[in-house]
């Protein structure tokens, strides 16, 4: 079953309560045919477990790996993904859209 946004943020709280490092990724901007709407969440724990989605599978791997750094150093960052510029975006969206994702640690 698809996880609703309800489950996702509750999972973040549960992981934190269990003593895990946790990061929340949020789609803050989209251009073109982005697969997930602004406000969509992906939550990640320090072991790389995750719930939710920011792109329907295209860039989750990259977000999860960046989230591990965010959990480690506590610095929030904004990631951009798209197909327009190969040098600026390491991971492309197959649908041709672009998205900006804000990743922050739960403290």
């Amino acid at each position, binding site marked *: 079953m698809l996880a609703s946004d309800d489950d996702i943020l509750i999972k973040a709280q549960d992981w934190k309560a269990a003593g895990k490092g946790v990061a929340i990724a949020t789609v803050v901007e989209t251009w073109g045919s982005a697969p997930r709407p*602004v*406000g969509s969440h992906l939550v990640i724990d320090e072991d790389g477990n995750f719930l939710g989605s920011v792109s329907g599978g295209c860039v989750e791997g990259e977000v999860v790996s960046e989230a591990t750094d965010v959990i480690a150093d506590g610095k929030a960052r904004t990631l951009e993904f798209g197909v327009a510029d190969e040098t600026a975006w390491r991971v492309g969206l197959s649908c041709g859209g672009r998205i900006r994702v804000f990743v922050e640690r*739960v403290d």
Partner: protein
Amino acid sequence: MRLDLLKTLNEERKARRAAILVTDMASGEQRLVKGADIAADPLADLLDQALRAGKSRSAEHDGKQLFLTVQAPPVRIFCIGAVHISQALAPMAKLTGFDLTVIDPRTAFATPERFPDAPVLADWPQNVLPGLGLDQYTGVCLLTHDPKIDDPALIAALKAECFYIGALGSRKTHAKRVERMMAEGFGEDALKRIHAPIGLDIGSVSPAEIAVSVLGEIIAALRKKPLRVEKAA
């Protein structure tokens, strides 16, 4: 995000109350505004618009780039009356993303066979509504034509300040309904909130066409008019 903000966000969601998380994209600074506190907030207009649209979005204020994470409770619709119009409205509401439940004490009408798309409660509104927590993100359609069934639901909906209350029946029927509600102690302002006769005036004839007009009216009540600002607890 601070853990206390995350906890509050989850608590508010569970309680079916609106909340907006405001993030300063440059500094990462965050604060949470509960639905009840929006009117008094310096960003009141911005937050109210975002909540009405029900969508998270970026915004600019005082030269600062902000992101608003909007958490609006899912909209629920209760149809009083397991009638033809409800049968058409149930699948349409489902497509629209509204959570619709049918309530009717007449067990011959209120059967799951007649409503494959929605839960059906074969009971009196006054028995089931108190346990369902009517609120400002709930709409109520009164469709039985029978005051014995409709009125208790109408009273509950008016008290809960439901965002939409629609009542089937002619203007004459509605005039009598208004009289009964005045006898119950409701004032003119409260009674003006009842959409009667129910549905947008699009010349609907069949039950399905009436259902379209009702659904349109529900969407307009949700999106067009300012949300009734939640009262501070």
